[in-house]
């Protein structure tokens, strides 16, 4: 028989519950938006049949290009610029992806008040720092050079 000592902490349970609900929501949205994309119900920013084609002057198809070359070829904005294209079949899929990628931030924000209430100072600091790190990654401020 398990006892109270083996049970997960309050913050662990809350984290798990949010993760569970958010994961299923994000995954379902991803599948639905992909069906919309494949069915052509919404026009795509990058026509679906173009992806496997090789543009003139290139040795590789579009999906064989480096990400920054692909972005230039189709005039795709970086960072959160994709939200302007969310009405298109292909970029609509990014909504589900962003939800899945954003879940962890939400979970941390949810457990923060519990950690504060417990006066668990080291973990309050760690949680705040983690939210800052993930927010920085999500912000789109970070640019990749070297091209």
């Amino acid at each position, binding site marked *: 028989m398990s006892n109270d000592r*083996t049970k997960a902490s309050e913050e662990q349970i809350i984290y798990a519950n949010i993760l569970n609900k958010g994961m299923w929501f994000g995954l379902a949205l991803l599948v639905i938006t992909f069906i919309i994309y494949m069915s052509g119900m919404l026009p795509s920013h990058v026509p679906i049949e173009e992806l496997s084609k090789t543009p003139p002057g290139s040795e590789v198809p579009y999906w064989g290009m480096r990400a920054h070359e692909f972005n230039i070829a189709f005039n795709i904005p970086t960072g959160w610029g994709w939200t302007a294209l969310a009405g298109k079949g292909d970029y609509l899929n990014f909504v589900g992806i962003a939800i899945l990628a954003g879940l962890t931030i939400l979970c941390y924000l949810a457990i923060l008040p519990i950690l504060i209430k417990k006066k668990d100072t*080291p973990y309050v600091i760690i949680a705040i720092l*983690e939210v800052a790190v993930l927010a920085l990654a999500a912000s789109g401020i970070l640019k990749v*050079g070297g091209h």
Partner: protein
Amino acid sequence: MLLKTLKTSKVVISLIVFLILIAGTVTVFASAEAVAPPIANSNVAWWVWPLVLFVVTFVLGILAVLGGVGGGVLFVPIVGGFFPFNIDFVRGAGLLVALAGALAAGPGLLKRNLASLRLSLPVALIASSAAIGGAMIGLALKPNVVNILLGATILFIVLIMATAKKSDFPIVPKPDNLSQSLGIMGIYREESLGKDVEWTVHKTPIGLALFVIIGIMAGMFGLGAGWANVPVLNLLMGAPLKISVATSKFLLSITDTSAAWVYLNQGAVLPMIVVPSIVGIMLGSMVGVKILAKAKPKAIKWMVIGLLLFAGLRALLKGLEIWK
């Protein structure tokens, strides 16, 4: 007994045959792609690739469960090596595949108190920060350099998988000061022994330092990092094997999130690659869990090691432009 062995052999043989067929199909398409002039790429209908990708990731999902590895570590070298997609998009998809798997497993592991939030949070802060750096380095490097490094990493993983021992209940003589001050400890019900197991960790500063390297590699190559997380948590820091495996799986949901955002923001994510891969791996994992009860884990483990060895060599030789 004989019947059981025959059934097990049938499952393993079917898997091998299926895998060979898939590998053959992919290789035929890949070589057609490589030798044909660019315009002939349109000869292969666009929908063939996502369909083949779905089937391959479905098989990878089965193998990942049976071989005890994450989907990402199989996905990136195999899809990167045999599909016409750029390694940028493959790594972006690899991270999201590993992330989806971790998100799916995380809630159950947390609720059963096998994944420890107290152990995860400090480690995740280090690993996720490093993963951002890794993702930025990876996207800035030339594809052939990425392939060489990826190939070398996969071969190293093969070495770890083939040689590393695991310890169910490592002995921790004395928790270190850092783990004590952070209160990294726990207790869980070990059903196989029918008793509660208390655990703590040691060598925390060295462990955290290693997670800098693990985070960079996870972000750079788009691999889930379970292959590295588990040995560090289990063999170095002394967490019980079950806690290490569960915490590692949950950790990926945080580490891969930070790197995934970098790939997403740099436009290195193609839904046409991501969605069939996530769905394929997840469905494959569900089937894998069912087969797990019948299959011989050791035989599968060596099959996965063989597959990784092949994929690692392919990435290395592709990067060195010996096998284009």
